[in-house]
């Protein structure tokens, strides 16, 4: 289980009289295995900032993030990196493919680290689940935004993570693919018992949610 306790992130930026502001302030939440949590909120409200802090990619100014017994930001870089590789998968906002690798190699990438041999079959299965297996040998430059998005989701799924965090995973997708991606992510929670967090503006996403959080000017609250 992933827990955040009073995490904040402050940035130095002139706002009004103060020269700093909080992108996220004192957020606490728990992501439970087998459940889908959806985080909504207006643009600039701090959703991405929170998601990065939850995934061990951004050091909070205050607060802690726990994965089971491990305090993520108390770990050294090596241990945290390993943990990100094995247990926390992230679908970041925007493009996230390595341009010099094929789509399939991108999906396999996490399984190649730390001496892994790479699981081609599993990677292809994840791509198939999102309807992009026919693009396995294509280069990222040859893919559309929506296709890249689905490749990124496939990469996250292929990590078989305990926690899966997706930042607007359906942003570039049409209705049909949105439904496909959301149901795949939901079944990752329901069938494989992963803890899933989706950041989404999409009202459609809320229909898949077990819990809904809302971010408002850096403050997190539960419920729509």
């Amino acid at each position, binding site marked *: 289980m992933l827990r955040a306790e009073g995490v904040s992130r402050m940035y130095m930026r002139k706002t009004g009289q103060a020269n700093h502001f909080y992108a996220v302030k004192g957020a606490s939440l728990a992501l439970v295995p087998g459940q889908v949590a959806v985080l909504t909120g207006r643009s600039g409200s701090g959703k991405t900032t929170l998601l990065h802090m939850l995934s061990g990619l951004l050091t909070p100014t205050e607060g802690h993030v726990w994965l089971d017994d491990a305090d993520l930001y108390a770990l050294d*870089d090596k241990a945290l990196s390993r943990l990100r590789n094995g247990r926390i998968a992230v679908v970041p906002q925007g493009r996230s493919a*390595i341009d*010099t690798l094929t789509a399939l190699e991108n999906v396999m990438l996490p399984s190649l680290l730390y001496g892994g041999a790479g699981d081609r079959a599993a990677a292809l299965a994840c791509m198939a689940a999102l309807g992009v297996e026919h693009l396995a040998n294509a280069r990222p430059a040859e893919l559309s935004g929506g296709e890249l998005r689905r490749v990124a989701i496939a990469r996250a799924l292929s990590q078989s993570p305990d926690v899966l965090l997706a930042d607007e995973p359906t942003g570039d997708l049409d209705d049909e693919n949105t439904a496909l991606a959301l149901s795949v992510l939901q079944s990752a929670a329901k069938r494989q018992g992963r803890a899933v967090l989706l950041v989404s503006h999409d009202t459609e996403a809320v229909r898949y949610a077990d819990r809904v959080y809302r971010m408002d000017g850096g403050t997190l609250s539960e419920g729509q």
Partner: protein
Amino acid sequence: MKMRQLPLKNLLGRPGRTAALVLLTAFLALSVFGGSVVVRSLRSGLDSLQARLGADIIVLPASAESKVSFKDLLLQGTAGAFYMDASALDRVREVEGVEIAAPQTFLASLKADCCAVKVQVIGIDPDVDFTVKPWIDRSYSQGLDDMAVAVGCRVTADVGESLKIYDRYTHVVAKLAETGTGLDTAVYCNMDTMKALLAAAEEKGVSHKITSDDSDLISAVYVKVKDGYDVGLVNNRLNGHVRKATAVKARSMFTDVSDSLTGISRTVTLLIGAIWTLAFIILVIAFAMMAAERRREFAVLRLVGVSRRGLCGLILTESALCSLAGGALGVALAALAVFPFTTLIETRLGLPYLAPSIGAALLLAAGTLLLTLLVGALASAWAAWRLSRTDPGTTLREGT
């Protein structure tokens, strides 16, 4: 695919950028390898010349041109024709402080059938010679019999062949090791052979006589000074005692060559230094730009679990691959530019030039590669360090 292949894939996946980095390092390697080979060759050319000379003092005929012509003979192998009476040798030996005095006689061949150019025939006295003899001994230890000759490495006649000089057949018994000096085109024989050749030249109408009588002729006397005697002092004594001859200290004979060599080395070193400073700055900028352009790519690698160290390793591996490829290319280009043109460089510079042996050249090449590797690593280290310090989350937010 293996993780190990990622750096190579990255390089091959962006051929333009990789080619630019490789060419830049190739340029570095070319300058340092080519430059040091040339400088080294000049150095060892001069060293070899001085070793070949091996004497403390050279006594030459007192004519105005004999010293210049002696130097040209050693440096460029041009023929010298200056003589003095053999009695000068006895006079030299009378001087206090002279340990050994070894005569040499020079004779320029006509266009011999062996060679496209005239060769210089040098007669030595094997019993007392201490400069050329040890060198000949290294290739041939039986001594020079009558009509036997040892040839410099650039004379196109091989051991066992015969060489026709003024219609006399001599046979080649030894081919000497390269010196990079004018001596490489010379032919060595003993004094009796030389006498016969001088007589043969006479028959052909090439006269070397300096007096009407038939006294023996010598061109130079190589003097070794006894331990404990001052070379300058002995030199002065020789000048006073031996008539119609000039004694020259061997050390002062090539000071001008040595000086110009030091000048050349300094210029080359400065040039290489300037090239490296410039190229290093360009490399640092190139890596910094590359790092900026690839920030997102690197953040994604961190996202899927690559550690800071892993990321630095990846960047350094890419730079090392570029350096190795560029270094090898540069060394190869330099080798192609320098080694085949050894003779051209030598004649152009008019200086002794002794190219390094294969072993030494390989060592230089290895050193060059190591240096380019180091520079590449240094240039990318800063970029790698900066990249690995920022939170990937911060980078991932940019430009989305």
